């Protein structure tokens, strides 16, 4: 029995170290150009399929599991969906309104599986505010000729610089 516990704890420690090493190896990278959501959508056709770094305000986080969020540009009609990868894990509701810098692959929605309609998929709205957010997202998506999303690799919250009063 003691052997089982010892082996289990050892396996945990090894798994943790392996994960750490992998994370350290990824770190040293050249600085990327950070685009705003507006700039990203303006260059959408040329950037589709590339890795991009985009900064925007989190206007909505999917309530059921936080597997995706929506970044807003200069207005609520300019939004981009970000899907959380394994590296990101999950987005939290506390990130609403925060500035998020996301690194990911910018993709065009080509199949139904890649598309996303929050209200329909979740079987109706849990509350009025969520329903309004889903309606705003649906309205913004309708104005786009081609729908895009980002398969997120990394997401960092950007703390706002303190402005002098």
């Amino acid at each position, binding site marked *: *029995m003691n052997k*089982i516990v010892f082996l289990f704890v050892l396996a945990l420690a090894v*798994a943790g170290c392996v994960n750490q090493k992998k994370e350290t190896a990824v770190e040293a990278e050249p600085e990327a150009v950070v685009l705003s959501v507006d700039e990203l959508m303006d260059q959408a056709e040329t950037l589709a399929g590339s890795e991009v770094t985009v900064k925007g305000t989190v206007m909505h986080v999917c309530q059921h599991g936080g597997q995706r969020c929506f970044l807003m540009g200069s207005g*609520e009609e300019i939004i981009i969906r970000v899907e959380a990868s394994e590296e990101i894990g999950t987005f939290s*509701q506390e990130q609403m309104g925060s500035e998020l810098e996301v690194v990911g692959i910018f993709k065009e929605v080509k199949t139904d599986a890649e598309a996303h309609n929050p209200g329909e998929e979740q079987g109706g709205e*849990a509350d009025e505010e969520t329903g309004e957010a889903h309606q705003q997202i649906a309205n913004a998506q309708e104005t786009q000729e081609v729908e895009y999303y980002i398969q997120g690799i990394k997401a960092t919250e950007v703390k706002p610089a303190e402005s002098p009063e």
Partner: protein
Amino acid sequence: MKLRKFLRNWHRDIGYLTVGILLIYGISGIMLNHQHDFNPDYRIFVYEFSADVSPKASYSKDEVKKMLAEAGREVVYKKHYMNSQGFIKVFIENGEASINPQTGEGVMRYLQRRALFFEMNQLHRATVVKTWKWISDAFSIMILFVTISGLFILKGKYGLKGRGWWLTLAGFLAPLFFMIFYI
């Protein structure tokens, strides 16, 4: 029989190891089952308030902060914008507010994490660090072992050949029924 003794010992010991994770999965499972009835991760508080607002096209950060102050709650302003309906949409720490500049009426929605439930739900959904995926796989294998070994531990009328197989079959019926008729 040596095999039965082996299964009993390992069933017991691995069973102890899995108590914690089964409690987490069981409790968070109930919470997540009801995610359409209530938010399993956060308690949501809704406050209505009135603000002194003059209708105009845009508002500065300081003006919005003054409006929020009239809600009578200590909140930390993050950002705001005018939405398509002409409402002032404000993001605050752990929440958001919406103010109608025509009437001054505002609604604030504040989130509070459900202590322990939030963390258990995250573990259940496996949306924590990558390592957790493999650890939860290991726990799942242990749970499978405990389940299957439990079928063969007892002999006689209380074992699998006695009442055991009736009860095991009955346990499969409910999920099978829903799988056949509802999926």
